[in-house]
């Protein structure tokens, strides 16, 4: 790495190491060498003398050359040497652990580790322990989660997964990787049974956990589905109960809207009345938006309902009033959107209703330059 300038400040890798371990003395970790308290570079290890290290080839004119630490370059020079030789050995497996510790996002290393695990017929349950440790330290790393999935598939044993994921979620209830892995496990091994219960537990802890609401939709759509009116009624009730506890809850309202939007918002018996009731005591921009959606749905499907022209006008008026209220007072940050909705619905269902302020023409030209 002769073109790398010597810098007085440390590189990212070393610093991240320090942050993670919290102690400068632990920076160098352990080695294969005789003295476990001093780190030995691979290039100085007798048992690696047979291998010629392979420096990184950044091409003839690298635009951005990363200033790797000596330790980093040494490990990866030897990793490349192993790859080149296609060596399948215990020492190679051990090196992949060092390489992962330095950069757990290097998927080439993870891939090679998988090749080694199979070639050496390693104990996959031991590997699962290793994986668990890495995930606990780096729960947002893509590669380790993918690796876990591969090993679970090889073992064909998901028995630890739900508990493990629950543990990760207890540390960060919205960890996207954890939820994704959970969805895969459940779908692959058909472990639907207790998941709704799990979701409800999480929502008890934090009713605003959007990931949990998403999971709720996932579970129901893959089990009972949303076609059964009894299920829909139950879910509506559940949503409204959660909303009573925490009215300003985007997730609950999104879930309600998402569940009903293709099933006719305005045709759910009693729903509009319940929402109007809630409006008095538990109002929020989300409630108002949902009301608007109900009115719009009613306007859309009026032909099926034998609505009179007068009823249509009334509904349109109410819809436009909500847009006005949101744009001018309740959700001014999204004024443009509410005004757009008001215009849309007015154009579509009749022009005799009250106008929404500043609705004369769209506030952005039809052709925008990029």
């Amino acid at each position, binding site marked *: 790495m002769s073109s790398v300038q010597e810098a007085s400040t440390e590189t990212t890798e070393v610093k991240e190491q320090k942050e993670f371990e919290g102690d400068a003395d632990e920076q160098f970790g352990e080695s294969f060498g005789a003295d476990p308290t001093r780190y030995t570079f691979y290039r100085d290890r007798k048992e690696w003398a047979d291998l010629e290290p392979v420096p990184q080839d950044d091409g003839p004119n690298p635009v951005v050359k*990363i*200033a790797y630490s000596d330790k980093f370059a040494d490990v990866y020079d030897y990793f490349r040497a192993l790859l080149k030789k296609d060596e399948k050995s215990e020492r190679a497996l051990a090196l992949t652990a060092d390489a992962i510790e330095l950069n757990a996002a290097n998927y080439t290393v993870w891939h090679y580790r998988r090749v080694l695990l199979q070639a050496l017929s390693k104990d996959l349950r031991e590997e699962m322990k290793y994986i668990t440790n890495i995930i606990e330290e780096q729960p947002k790393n893509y590669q380790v989660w993918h690796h876990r999935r591969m090993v679970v598939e090889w073992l064909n044993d998901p028995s630890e997964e739900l508990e493990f994921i629950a543990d990760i979620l207890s540390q960060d209830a919205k960890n996207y990787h954890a939820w994704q892995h959970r969805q895969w496990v459940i*779908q692959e091994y058909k472990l639907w049974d207790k998941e709704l219960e799990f979701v409800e537990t999480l929502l008890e802890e934090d009713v605003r*956990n959007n*990931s949990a609401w998403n999971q709720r939709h996932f579970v129901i759509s893959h089990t009972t589905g949303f076609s059964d009116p009894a299920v829909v009624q139950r879910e509506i009730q559940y949503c409204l109960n959660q909303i009573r506890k925490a009215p300003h809850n985007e997730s609950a309202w999104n879930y309600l809207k998402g569940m009903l939007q293709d099933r006719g918002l305005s045709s759910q018996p009693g729903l509009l009345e319940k929402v109007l009731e809630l409006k008095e005591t538990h109002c929020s921009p989300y409630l108002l938006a949902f009301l608007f959606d109900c009115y719009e749905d009613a306007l859309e499907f009026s032909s099926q309902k034998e609505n009179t022209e007068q009823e249509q006008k009334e509904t349109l008026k109410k819809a436009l009033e909500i847009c006005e209220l949101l744009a001018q007072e309740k959700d001014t940050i999204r004024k443009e959107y509410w005004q757009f909705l008001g215009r849309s619905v007015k154009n579509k269902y009749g022009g005799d209703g009250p106008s929404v302020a500043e609705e004369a023409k769209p506030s952005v030209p039809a052709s925008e330059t990029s």
Partner: protein
Amino acid sequence: IAQLKDVIIKPDAPSSLLLDKHADYIAAYGSKKDDYVTYLYCFFQLVIFFMILSGKMDTINVDKAVEFVLSCMNFDGGFGCRPGSESHAGQIYCCTGFLSLTGQLHQLNADLLGWWLCERQLPSGGLNGRPEKLPDVCYSWWVLASLKIIGRIHWIDKAKLRRFILACQDEETGGFADRPGDMVDPFHTLFGVAGLSLLGDEQIKAVNPVLCMPEDVLQRIGLQPDLLS
């Protein structure tokens, strides 16, 4: 203490692209059914970018890829990483960018998606990535660029967002942090600057929302991905 990145930037750009090498690697990666949408986008961005230049679009089954991306659309109009995964602004950016690059933006419900995206704006003016999460300046890019791609950038309050982004700067060290008061880093700096560009700041070059590159660079090579109006 600021975390200084010790990178060496040479003034010369590469003189030739290793097209075949990149295309082979990317095509092989993209053949697995369950690849992350994120990588799919990033790799398709690169692949399509290079393939447009070299005329090799037919190497990839674009229809299948589009099918997969659309299958990631959720009940709230957003996109997740895989079918069923929670809608997330980062994933949405990848999907809208991908659909732009493949000329498939018409497959979106732009009003519904635009609504979900403009709901990311919080009272502080900042944008979050999913409901009930904190604002983060990088979402000034993921959300804003997505809105720009689908032609609904005017649905967020620009003045408030600008104020938030500017507040994420560090006056002593320069750079942007994820939110005001935190440590700066290049990642958030890029997206803070890019977000400001999308908002129309005249001190910054116009940025292309699909490829996150200056427009003049793309104009120079004749690449103008689709946007909805």
